[in-house]
């Protein structure tokens, strides 16, 4: 797995598709899920309280008119009890069954998927949320938390039974490394070694640094580059005055070395190798 230079974090779960493509999902931990849950509780019980206020007002208003007080009150309280039921048993299953995430989960940037990385369907969403009743025993999700800590996918009991997990929704990819500016000069190209090979960790670190370069003040970029430029330029026997530019040139050559149609910076007079 060439591009995953760094060993994956232990909160990553690899899922292989039938096409033999491996996706890495970051599973969401208890803290982020608790945040999402708190938001959902605020939404659910906010609605219940709002309806309760309306019912109370209607009952008080009805009392002035006399007559059908108990009818409207009965209807209102009946409705409230149904809403309470829905908040406890339907809200989570419905959102997750239809969209894969409750509003709280969407806000926290997490989503429920099966352990094969596929979207959850209504039966799985129903099962994992029915078992919420077991997970929150004896108090405050103690059982669920214990189950999550004993699972490498942070699965509570409901997740285990329904074969689901909660993952962090991948963000849009980060920016690319900007091309070197000004373009490599002939003397720089001539001085560069033909064969620049970084090991994957070095390459990933350089890439991260060069992507951030535009956002860094020049002095800070220099300071950071100077930390690593010494050993690297000694290894390749190449350095220009500016340490940032040294790293950028070497990275550019490592990326393009040996490829057809490579940019000029990657070639040196004669064909490489």
């Amino acid at each position, binding site marked *: 797995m060439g591009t995953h230079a760094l060993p994956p974090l232990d909160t990553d779960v690899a899922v292989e598709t039938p096409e033999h493509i491996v996706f890495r999902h970051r599973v969401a931990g208890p803290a982020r899920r608790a945040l999402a849950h708190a938001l959902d509780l605020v939404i659910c019980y906010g609605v219940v309280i709002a309806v309760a206020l309306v019912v109370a007002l209607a009952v008080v208003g009805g009392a002035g008119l006399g007559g059908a007080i108990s009818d409207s009150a009965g209807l209102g309280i009946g409705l409230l009890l149904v809403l309470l039921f829905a908040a406890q048993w339907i809200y989570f299953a419905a959102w997750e069954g239809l969209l894969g995430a409750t509003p709280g989960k969407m806000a926290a940037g997490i989503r429920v998927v099966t352990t094969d990385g596929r979207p959850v369907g209504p039966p799985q969403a129903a099962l994992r949320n029915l078992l919420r009743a077991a997970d929150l025993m004896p108090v405050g999700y103690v059982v669920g938390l214990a189950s999550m800590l004993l699972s490498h996918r942070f699965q509570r009991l409901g997740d285990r039974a329904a074969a689901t997990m909660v993952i962090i929704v*991948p963000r849009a*990819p980060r920016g690319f490394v900007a091309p070197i500016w000004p373009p490599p000069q002939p003397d720089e190209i001539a001085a560069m070694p033909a064969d620049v090979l970084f090991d994957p960790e070095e390459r990933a670190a350089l890439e991260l640094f060069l992507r951030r370069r535009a956002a860094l003040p020049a002095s800070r970029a220099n300071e950071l580059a100077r930390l690593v430029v010494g050993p690297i330029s000694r290894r390749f026997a190449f350095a220009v005055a500016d340490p940032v530019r040294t790293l950028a040139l070497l990275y550019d050559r490592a990326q393009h070395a040996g490829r057809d149609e490579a940019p000029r910076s990657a070639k040196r007079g004669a064909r490489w190798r």
Partner: protein
Amino acid sequence: MALTSRLTEGAFVSSRQGAWGELAHLSQRAADVGLRRLAPADLARLSPGYRDACADLAHARAARYSAPLVEQLELLAAQAHSTLYAARRGQAARVREAFAAFPRAVRRRKGAVALAALLFFAPLAFGLLASLSDPTFAFKVAPEAMLRQLSEAYARGFDEGRRGGEGALMAGFYVNNNVGIALRCFATGIFGGLGSAFYLFQNGLSIGAILGYVISQGAGANIGVFIIGHGSFELGAIVLAGGAGLSMGWSIVSPGEKTRLHSLQDTSKDVVVIVAGAAAMLLVAALLEGFWSGSSLPAEVKLVFGGAMFALVSAYLVLAGRARAEGAP
């Protein structure tokens, strides 16, 4: 080091970018309007487009192209993967299927359902007999004041009927309370079935004791007429939910040749159908209990209706979905 490709990243991106854009567009549209409503031509392009993107991703990883490009391709492939593998069938077909799947699942689990019935009805009979012979037994399971109020209410009968508002209130209460109890009875079955057994026993005992107390106070006929209309739905559903919970618990205790986790997953996928069916039965029960059982209709009508409902529920659970199950290859 051998490089797997001689194509530069730039050349690779510029040759494939068009296809990626198209795939991103297609899978976004499929996610928005649903796979079924995609134009046939688009649908035909989606799957090859996804496979090409997978190949591109594998290539980009092998050729060690830069991380942002690989991330972009991963995101693209993941998005298309979610869309393609989420295909769902039409709603009407699902409802029809569920209607037959519920009794079939119940019959597959008839051992557990029978055990649940025993765990529920044996304490119920015990509570009933105990408080018939000594009404103060009922005070051990429910507060005395509540029981006195209850038996007075049943002694009055239903001639006045319930007002519309009261019916709605009670229906809401039954939804929240009874369906909640049944679902909890199922969910706690994951602890080796112990939770389900506890809820079945506890509910059986208190229903029996309260029933016995009300009968001992001379309101037996009235409470019988009240219960018979919705009883087959309500008591049946609690037993079914408990049976589903017992199955789930047993699948962990005795997984057979599977791992415990797989056994749990297979069984709970199967029994969740039973729980959904039981919840639907309890919703029917709540509506009946709120608006029918407490109404001022004559007792004879309620008795006949109750008997018919009992026959209907039993016939449905025993017979529905059989022909197709046997005819299936």
